[in-house]
């Protein structure tokens, strides 16, 4: 795989069985992630945006191999993550870390926050005193005075403070890639801004690469260089953040932008945002999964999943409306 990318995924797929009956056979499959491919270059921030339940969190876990995919592959720094030996995997884990969404469930209530941060270092063989010192230094870096907070338990901290601890825990191993799974969704707007700015600072300081997952288009626009729009486990559009904001192509992306609150009255769109809930991922519509809610649905849409089509430099869209352009290999 080309070394220009820090992270590559090809055809990632994860279907979860819904078991039932006496024999607990799979009765149906939830298509959480279906055929997702993308590249992340060193130093860039890839935003992944989509509604709840579109497979964003599963994708995050697939990238970090917390969940084994059914098909497809993940390459980190040119290395096939799914086929490395366990010892090498443990080493790889230092380079790719995850920040979780829920600041409450993501910290062990029985560990002080400095122990929570130091734990990863202990796992990788650091001495106790050394691990603690490095954890405390990092807590200071994310804005938590280690003298005041180091020996505290998670329940003594606010949501924003806990999220800072989560970030410190993810950074303590000095990773190259940070996957952020809705890192600010559970926080108040004002705290969101603080945490986002902390993340941007840290990225510049430590030359990090981010995969930033969120359902909040404003947040995604703020932090991302490139954006991937997901719908029901599939990528419907990808491009630079500017290109997507200027001229979203896929009807779903357009609807997302129309639904996002904007401070600028000139940017309001005439088209109504989409109505209703996304279809059940257990039995998604045939062909283009968005067609049931799409204002432009054509008979062709029901036949097959539209392949990604290049509509600009690095701007792909999976929609038959743009079928005339040259098709990119799927």
């Amino acid at each position: 795989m080309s070394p220009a990318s820090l992270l590559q995924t090809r055809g990632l797929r994860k279907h979860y069985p819904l078991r039932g009956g006496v024999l607990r056979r799979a009765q149906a499959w939830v298509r959480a992630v279906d055929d997702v491919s993308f590249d992340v270059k060193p130093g860039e921030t890839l935003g992944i945006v989509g509604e709840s339940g579109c497979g964003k969190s599963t994708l995050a876990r697939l990238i970090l191999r917390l969940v084994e995919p059914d098909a497809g592959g993940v390459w980190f720094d040119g290395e096939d993550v799914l086929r490395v030996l366990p010892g090498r995997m443990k080493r790889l884990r230092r380079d790719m870390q995850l920040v979780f969404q829920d600041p409450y469930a993501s910290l062990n209530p029985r560990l002080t926050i400095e122990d929570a941060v130091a734990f990863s270092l202990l796992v990788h063989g650091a001495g106790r005193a050394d691990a603690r010192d490095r954890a405390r230094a990092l807590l200071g870096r994310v804005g938590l005075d280690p003298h005041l907070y180091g020996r505290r338990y998670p329940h003594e901290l606010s949501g924003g403070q806990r999220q800072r601890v989560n970030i410190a825990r993810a950074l303590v191993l000095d990773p190259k890639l940070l996957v952020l799974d809705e890192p600010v969704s559970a926080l108040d707007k004002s705290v969101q801004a603080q945490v986002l700015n902390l993340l941007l600072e840290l990225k510049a300081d430590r030359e990090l690469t981010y995969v930033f997952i969120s359902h909040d288009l404003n947040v995604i626009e703020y932090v991302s260089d490139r954006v991937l729009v997901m719908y029901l486990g599939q990528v419907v559009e990808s491009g630079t953040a500017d290109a997507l904001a200027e001229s979203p192509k896929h009807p779903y992306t357009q609807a997302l932008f129309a639904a996002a609150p904007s401070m600028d009255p000139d940017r309001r769109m005439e088209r109504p945002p989409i109505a209703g809930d996304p279809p059940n991922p257990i039995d998604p519509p045939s062909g283009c999964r968005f067609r049931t809610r799409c204002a432009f649905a054509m008979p062709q849409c029901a036949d097959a999943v539209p392949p990604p089509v290049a509509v600009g430099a690095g701007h792909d869209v999976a929609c038959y409306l743009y079928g005339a352009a040259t098709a990119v290999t799927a």
Partner: protein
Amino acid sequence: MSVIALPQELSTVAGAPRSYWRTVAWRLARERATLTAGTLLLLIALSAVLAPWIAPHDPSAGAIRLRLAPVGTPSHLLGTDEQGRDMLSRLLWGGRMTLVAGLTPVVVAFLMGTLLGVIAGYTGGLANTLVMRTMDVFYAFPAVLLAIAISGALGPGLPNTLISLSIVFVPRVVRVAESATVQVKGLEYVAAAKASGASVWQILRYHLLANVLGPVLVFASTQVSLSIILAAGLSFLGLGVTPPAAEWGLMLNTLRQSIYVNAVVPALPGLAIFVTSMAFNLVSDGLRDAMEIRA
């Protein structure tokens, strides 16, 4: 007025963070009911341990002429039983048996049940189904019936009582441990530990057990009083401790025909059982409140 007292107040609210177990101890220390019950338990345990030295008489030496002496008889403070044996001595000695029969099965169940439950909960899949369905078989029987059936099959005697009661309590602990494990396993901090490359053992040790042992311990402590009553019940039925050993349930059984002659003396072992199991219940209630984690 109270402004001056504020710094002291602050030290309890925001002061030096303490370890989890010190917090628990601190909370326990301010529960009056728990403290009283705990002190009572300590006294009961102490008197049972010290029985050989503090009992005024030999618990199995009877005096045919002094049968069913009332409470307050000189040299027999709590009277004598139907064979003229000193009740106080027998109650002290009986406490040993009853506490052993009450605590041992719960301790065994706590250890085995936690082990099985955590394994079943953490591995999931077939191992979970296998363990949990087997436990369900035991769970299907009422506790008393199961204890009687197993004791009946094994025969009377203290060791068999302990075995049968352990079998009664293991499935209950397994259930609690399993559900706590499944719940904790799904939390994000376990995923975070995996993401940092922690081994299964490290995850179990630092993240799972630390959060599972608390609830299981609290549950096990609620079972002690039940175990005491079941053990006493088995002795009462002649399936537990055998005469002439002193055990509260057994004493209740042998004294029961004498209730029309002297109503107070036969009630004493029952009272002892009641007070002890009540004290265990109160302590476990206090423990549950004190060990609650504020998330």
